[in-house]
């Protein structure tokens, strides 16, 4: 009991630290600009860290990139212009959404290809199962009639 109270106290005390946003504060004219900035920096990947966007990363390079994105935005740059400026410096690595081009075509097409393969497999299983039901049970017509008589419980079958 004492321990859980202590843990709760610790969480309360350190809570603000755990959820601390990157310390730099940017001001915006309106909320949609702010939203745009946040979308932008969460789509850019920090080159120093392996898998963090520059919104979440506290690496110095991410701070520089946020700063640059903010500066570019405040001089009226579009989202694409900001992203392209980062790609020109740091390479395609910083894009979380790679562009569709010949080099990344396979990457984008893989989900579709996998779904198609899955559909083909399911379809072939279904078709084969149907075909088996229809004809491939290996019985002649006579035998089939006999089988249905037996299944329907007709006693005359036993005597023959």
């Amino acid at each position, binding site marked *: 009991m004492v321990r859980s109270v202590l843990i709760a106290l610790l969480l309360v005390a350190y809570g603000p630290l755990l959820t601390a946003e990157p310390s730099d504060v940017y001001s915006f004219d309106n909320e949609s600009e702010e939203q745009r900035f946040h979308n932008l920096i969460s789509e850019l990947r920090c*080159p*120093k860290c*392996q898998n963090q966007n520059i919104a979440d990363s506290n690496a*110095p*390079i991410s701070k*520089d990139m946020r700063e*640059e994105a903010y500066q570019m935005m405040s001089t009226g740059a579009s989202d694409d212009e900001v992203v392209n400026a980062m*790609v*020109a*410096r*740091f*390479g*395609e*690595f910083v894009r979380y959404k790679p562009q569709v081009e010949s080099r990344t075509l396979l990457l984008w097409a893989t989900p579709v290809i996998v779904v198609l393969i899955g559909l083909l497999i399911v379809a072939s299983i279904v078709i084969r199962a149907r075909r088996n039901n229809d004809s491939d049970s290996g019985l002649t017509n006579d035998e089939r009639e006999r089988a249905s008589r037996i299944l329907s419980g007709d006693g005359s079958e036993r005597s023959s």
Partner: protein
Amino acid sequence: MKRAFLFIPVILAVVLGVVLFAGIGKDPNKLESALIGKPVPEFQLSDLHDEGRQLDRELFKGRVSLLNVWGTWCPACRDEHDDLVWLAEEKGIRIVGLNYKDNRDDALVWLDRLGDPYQVSIYDPRGRLGFDLGVYGAPETYVIDAEGIVRHRHVGVVNEKVWEQDIEPLVQRYREKI
């Protein structure tokens, strides 16, 4: 026909194995520079040794150079420093230093104490040129050809092995082109 299908999992496993094996040993921290084949970005920065002297990218013209990004705050830069001095003194390599996000006084003390391998030192306290170059972790060393085009980037410490394997062949090649 049905038997052939039984091999599909094996084939899939082999393909996956080959793909994953190809990735073993690759360092995911090393990125290809986006500037390969492009000129050094424009800059206007002062000389580390002489505040009044402005430097720009013309300084790369005419000779193959190494551009070494460093700072006194960077422990790995200390590690490679002796090798840079060796390259400059024994091999006669032209090394341009980019003092990145650092403090002029500290940097000058460092060079005074450990030796100065740089023929030219660019002072970039705010990291502007570093940012335009796409520097994401010091030390970084670039091979710049005599026309001021970036030919190679090495992220991390330059030592004798890196020099012989990665950098020297490129320096030789671009020297011959002059």
